[in-house]
């Protein structure tokens, strides 16, 4: 079944850029040019996710968000905004969005986040998982234990969180900013290769020796945990 994405964005170039990107990744995309239209679509169709611009003609993005949530629709929504400050972010998340991405952004970042949102499912409805695995890598969330092919891997608490994030998004790209947000709860672009160093340490621990590589670098975007390269 093909997944449908709703893009609510008034700037035609950006809308086109985003829509093309999703289509290339196998999605069917509906585009709405203003808030009213967007709200109409959101309440009508069944979307895997909604990409919502913060500032829209007719009806403000946050107002659309409020109306969608008030109508009981829990489709994952990611807000795009030219207002990039952390405060705007908090405001967006408080209004009921699932994620917030400041403009300008790279499409790969948006894609990674949208896919992560779908995996997470509607907010609050996350199924309880006690075990995460990828190939012969196994993470026991209750015992907080990680094993590779039966052999225990010793991880620092943050390395554990980092690996957990990657495992929960298995087969999908996790960007560096997503890691900083999820693991350390700071919302800024780390800029330099700060995260890369953490990843390479983690990689050393889980790919000890000549085992099959699981942690792949997706150039220019982030990292992905997968059994196949």
């Amino acid at each position: 079944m093909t997944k449908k994405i709703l893009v609510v964005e008034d700037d035609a170039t950006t809308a086109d850029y985003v829509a093309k990107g999703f289509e290339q990744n196998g999605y069917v995309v509906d585009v709405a040019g203003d808030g009213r239209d967007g709200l109409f679509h959101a309440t009508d169709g069944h979307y895997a996710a909604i990409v919502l611009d913060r500032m829209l003609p007719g009806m403000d993005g946050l107002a659309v968000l409020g109306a969608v949530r008030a109508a009981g629709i829990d489709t994952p929504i990611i807000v795009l905004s030219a207002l990039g400050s952390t405060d705007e972010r908090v405001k967006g998340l408080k209004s009921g969005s699932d994620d917030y991405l400041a403009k300008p952004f790279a499409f790969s970042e948006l894609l990674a986040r949208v896919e992560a949102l779908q995996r997470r499912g509607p907010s609050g409805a996350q199924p309880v998982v006690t075990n995460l695995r990828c190939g012969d890598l196994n993470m026991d969330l209750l015992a907080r234990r990680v094993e590779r092919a039966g052999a225990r891997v010793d991880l620092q608490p943050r390395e554990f969180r980092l690996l957990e994030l990657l495992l929960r998004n298995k087969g999908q790209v996790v960007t560096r900013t997503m890691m900083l947000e999820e693991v350390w709860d700071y919302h800024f672009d780390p800029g330099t290769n700060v995260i890369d160093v953490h990843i390479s340490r983690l990689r050393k621990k889980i790919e000890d020796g000549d085992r099959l590589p699981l942690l792949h670098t997706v150039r220019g975007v982030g990292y992905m945990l997968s059994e196949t390269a």
Partner: protein
Amino acid sequence: MIDSPRLRLRLPAPIRVALISLVFGLVITLPVLLFVYHQTDSLFEQRIHDRLDDAEHSALDAYSASGPAAMASSMQQIIRTGQLRGGVALLVDPRGHKIAGNLSGWPPVLPTPSQWNEFRLYPEGQVRAELFAIRTIALPGGERLLLGTTIDERERMRAALVEALLGALLLAVPLGLIGGWVVLKVAERRARAIGNVATRIAGGDFSHRLDEDRGAEEFGMLAAAINAMLERIEELVEQLRLVTDSLAHDLRSPLTRMRANIERAAGADADRQQQAIEAVSLDIDRMLRLISATLEISSTEAGVGKQHFENFDLAGLLRDICEIYNPLAEERGMEMAIDAPPKLAYTGNRQSIGRAVANLADNAVKYGGGSIELGAADKGEFIDLWVADRGPGISPDLHEHALGKYRRLEESRTTEGSGLGLALARAVARLHGGEIELQDNAPGLRVVLRLRRDAGNLSLL
């Protein structure tokens, strides 16, 4: 609406002020004057009563001792000695015939006995009628006695009091007017001074300030508050100018490079075009980072972020940042350590402080050297956060320069960075009512973020 401007009577300001001060004056002084009037009046009345009582007693004493004849002679004495102070006295027999006294006959309307009558009478031997307080007494033998004393004195006192009162009122009107006018003029002069400065500033000259020491204290305080506001506005405008200038400057070079890359790529082979696209993407990323960093600083400087103050542990924040950057430091042959109490509770914007410290740590890893120390200490009014390294440092005369926006010091031009890290850290310190300070770590650089402990309660100044 009651406050319709059409219905409101607009009096000239000095008259309004005068009227208000007048009404206030009256409200305060009238009760006092009335009280004084009443007290004085009853005092006088009491004295008149006393005088009548005395005369009555001596007359009755004489009567009970030796009858009406003795009483008559006693009355003559009362009149002569002035016991009644220019008063009147009359004794009549039961049929109403005069036995003694200085009145020609009993006034027809006067009842007997009675305590207090105010009556205008002509005593014998006087040409003018006077006002008397009169007491009448019925004697056991059927005779009637009339005693009276003049109360002109009281009347004069009353008149004088009323006169004084009216005079005071009459005086209050011009005094109130003058007072109002003076107050108004003073206020007007100060207001005009403020207005003049405002006009100059509206004209684009931000350097003018009000005189804070002249005139009344309240105006001094007002002037100080306005000056502080102007200071802040001037600073913001100056910053805005700087941002625009530097942003334009810093965007121009990547834009020029991009243009060159694109021109060269046109018509070149596929490999060459691919290279050009990658170079252009890199430049675009750099520009985007520059713009978002600039926006972040500007909004922080404008005080955005006050709404999101929360309670958190500063020591925990340092541990987070150390954990994030330590691997990078180790990779470059440095080490990062923490010097802070185990817990340091603070109310502030955790995200922006985290970002500022991360920027400083990032700088230390990039430009510093040796061991890097992240520290925090409680200094009472302030909490100091610092990032210190053992690298080449920045010479003291370049400290102020380094804090400005887009200031990558020339030596470090080659290293990647927006050059906004310190500027952002300074904006964050100011958001929390503090400052940033660059110190010589001998050797190396020590950047101190000074945060006010009660920043959450500060209004932005």
